[in-house]
């Protein structure tokens, strides 16, 4: 089951500069675990030590913020687009 994952610039070092990668998982948590296997270091950038999503990073499934769905248990389907969106401060 293939999910398209949009990687923000701040994490592209981990994906060898790829803007978009393919991932797998039946929900967001599993997707992150799988991304971590392929791109070590990804999980700790997205989640805190307790495994909770960091408060300055959001994850969207298609156009929807998972905080308003089922958080990291939000189910994923083939063809979904997941976006990792960090707060950016530059100006």
């Amino acid at each position: 089951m293939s999910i398209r994952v949009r990687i923000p610039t701040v994490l592209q070092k981990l994906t060898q500069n790829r803007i978009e990668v393919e991932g797998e998982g039946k929900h967001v948590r599993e997707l992150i675990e799988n991304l971590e296997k392929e791109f070590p270091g990804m999980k700790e950038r997205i989640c805190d030590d307790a495994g909770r999503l960091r408060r300055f990073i959001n994850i969207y499934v298609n156009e929807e913020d998972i905080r308003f769905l089922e958080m990291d248990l939000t189910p994923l389907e083939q063809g979904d687009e997941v976006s990792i969106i960090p707060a950016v401060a530059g100006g």
Partner: protein
Amino acid sequence: MKLREEQIERYSRQIILPNVGGKGQEKLLNAKVLIVGAGGLGSPCALYLGAAGIGKIGIVDSDAVELNNLQRQVIHSMKDVGRPKVESARDRINAINQDVEVIPYHLRITSENILDIIKDYDIVVDGSDNFPTRYLVNDACVLSKKPLSHGGIFRFDGQAMTIIPGESPCLRCLFPEPPPPGLVPGCQEAGILGAVAGAIGIIQANEVLKYVLGIGELLTGKLLVFSALDSSFRQLKVSRYPKCPVCGESPEITKLIDYEEFCSLQRKDEKV
């Protein structure tokens, strides 16, 4: 207010637009917009708002122009290096359009002065370059019910959202807290492509113009995400967050937080 002959000529290309007209131009000439930061976002934003004939533009920035700013901060010129950015920005706007009254605030915006500064304006543009200022501006705008155009950039990524306090989600609904200092590098260390700043700064100017004119749809409840590397623009849904620390159901933040110490720490790091 009656438009002068020269103003009708100057603004003719927007006056002929449906939904703008002479009435719309008068709205623009009567509008008061505050821009926080005369940097990568504030420069293009201020140029377009000044050119469009926004009557009063306040600009807040404590810095002087440096040579390495000119790669993206297109309001400043070679001759301005060393001058306060707010003065350089004022002169450039007035060189384009003398209808605009530019109010320079050569200071660092803080919890002490922000409410007093924003109260005179219709809408605020956040073009600052650090998290403490962004959260301060957001909180001040929410607490004083002042519309805010949020824009941020990082390397090849840009984001923009418009906030109408009490109606649409705020920055803290989107990201409840700033990251701890040191975790996310600023422009100085991270680098930025000037055109990315330009794209987002001009989207912010466009939001302000639509707000003042009362036309179209604002980026409220929507985060515009620009990825320069594949030229994609996406809009993600943003909802009001019930647990938002400043505009949620039981807000913890009822007065402004002074992030000064955090800010100076971060700035020291950025100087490396």
